[in-house]
């Protein structure tokens, strides 16, 4: 009952967004530069029908998927090592503490010079934007494991390796997942910025090209798709946390 009400409110919230958009575009700011939602939807259907939309979307999504996976695979073990061993922390902290303040968007030019305007530079940038946030969250998670959890395991006969794999690691999972979720949001920002600057395809490229021909409808299609993709990716991630790691998650 309460769930039905919450879902209802949620849908109403979304609907109001489109209603306000429609009112604003039709009566408040009637301009060719600000298309109404139905025009954008019509354009989206047209672009979907001729295959363009799918082509651009899958190009962006593919880059995010491989960069995000790569960044997480690099970040998690590094974060675990930093959180577990003070020596590793001291050695690697200069890297994480220095590089994480250089935003991925600032690295676009360098990435293009190094890896060209193809997939290489995009995947590098997504890895770059993912890796630090995953490292920092994972390391924070390891440090936050309650001392009594470790002491209890030791008094129950666990070896150091067992303490790591059966206590520290599972206790850190919620932090790792949170880091990955934040990194996912960053990946969307980075991929669009990178495609705006230099790419042969992708949603960012679609926005930039549309600007040149004043295809405002098409820009809004890309924006709408981005919103939907980000929303869906985040929901899927949360759903994944509940379905596969719910018992690791402190969120209720």
């Amino acid at each position, binding site marked *: 009952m309460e769930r039905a009400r919450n879902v209802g409110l949620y849908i109403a919230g979304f609907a109001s967004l489109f209603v306000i958009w429609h009112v604003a575009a039709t009566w408040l700011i009637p301009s060719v530069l600000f298309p109404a939602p139905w025009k954008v939807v019509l354009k989206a259907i047209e672009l979907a029908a001729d295959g363009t939309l799918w082509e651009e979307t899958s190009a962006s999504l593919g880059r995010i998927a491989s960069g995000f996976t790569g960044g997480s695979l690099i970040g998690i073990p590094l974060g675990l090592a930093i959180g577990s061993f003070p020596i590793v922390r001291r050695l690697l902290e200069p890297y994480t503490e220095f590089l994480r303040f250089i935003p991925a968007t600032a690295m676009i030019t360098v990435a293009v010079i190094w890896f060209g305007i193809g997939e290489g530079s995009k995947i590098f940038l997504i890895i770059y934007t993912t890796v630090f946030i995953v490292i920092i969250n994972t390391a924070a998670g390891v440090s936050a494991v309650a001392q*009594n*959890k470790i*002491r209890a395991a*030791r*008094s*129950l006969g666990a*070896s150091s390796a067992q303490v790591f794999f*059966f206590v520290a690691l599972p206790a850190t999972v919620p932090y790792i997942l949170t880091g990955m979720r934040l990194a996912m949001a960053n990946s969307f920002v980075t991929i669009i910025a990178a495609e705006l600057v230099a790419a042969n395809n992708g949603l960012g490229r679609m926005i930039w090209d549309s600007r040149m021909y004043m295809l405002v409808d098409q820009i809004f299609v890309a924006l709408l798709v981005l919103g939907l993709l980000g929303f869906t990716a985040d929901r899927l991630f949360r759903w994944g946390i509940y379905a596969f790691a719910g*018992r690791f998650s402190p969120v209720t």
Partner: protein
Amino acid sequence: MSLVQLSRVSKVYRSLKGGDYTAVRDFSLEIPAGEFFCLLGTSGCGKTTVLNMVAGFEATSTGAITVAGKPVTRPDADRGVVFQGDDSLYGWLSALGNVEFGLRMRGVPAKERHDKARHYLELVGLKGQDHKHPQELSGGMKQRIQIARVLANEPQMLLMDEPFAALDAHTRASLQKELKRICRATGKTVLFITHDIDEAIILADRIGVMHAGPASKLKGTIEVALGEAERERTHDRFVTVYRQVHEMIRDEVALSLQRAG
């Protein structure tokens, strides 16, 4: 020979600013096998420090601790620890998973450890709660899981650090009764830390009273030769023991309050 021996144990903490803090000094104690020993003291008297050293969590600064003749150098499965709070439980494991944790770490086959874990869950009154996770259970039930987890591991002795301090009065009273029953049934040696005189008299075979900290040691011990029926707060013999313990700890409480400022 006693199962547990602490001979002239001291613990000094070095602070970063250079000032040393002596928590306990020349602390000596012997606990024979099968005894339920309550270490009673005011807050800040170093009783938890003593337990942490026996558990092997902290090293002694001077002096020696042996359990069954072996010097204590690190935590081990022969000394099971029950903690005050619930942060030692594993939230990602079920009650059963928590209780069988030690057995799993030591490579006991699944069937055998499930059976044993279920047996101990039943012993602490959690029959049929196997699949619940700690977050789904009340404070009292979580302490029961901790007790079952330690018992399932079959240690030589239990170390309990104010395990019931955070519980409400009714839950605490029923857990005290059950712990006493379980210890009678299993014959376990227990070192139990508390600041509550009633709790010490309800549980202990012998009570050790500590001086107020810092640089604390044992002030004296009192035998509690009470039968099961006499371990009621209103019983005459209970009150007699209470006066005896109170007599010994009264000055220390005053001193500790004075020092806390």
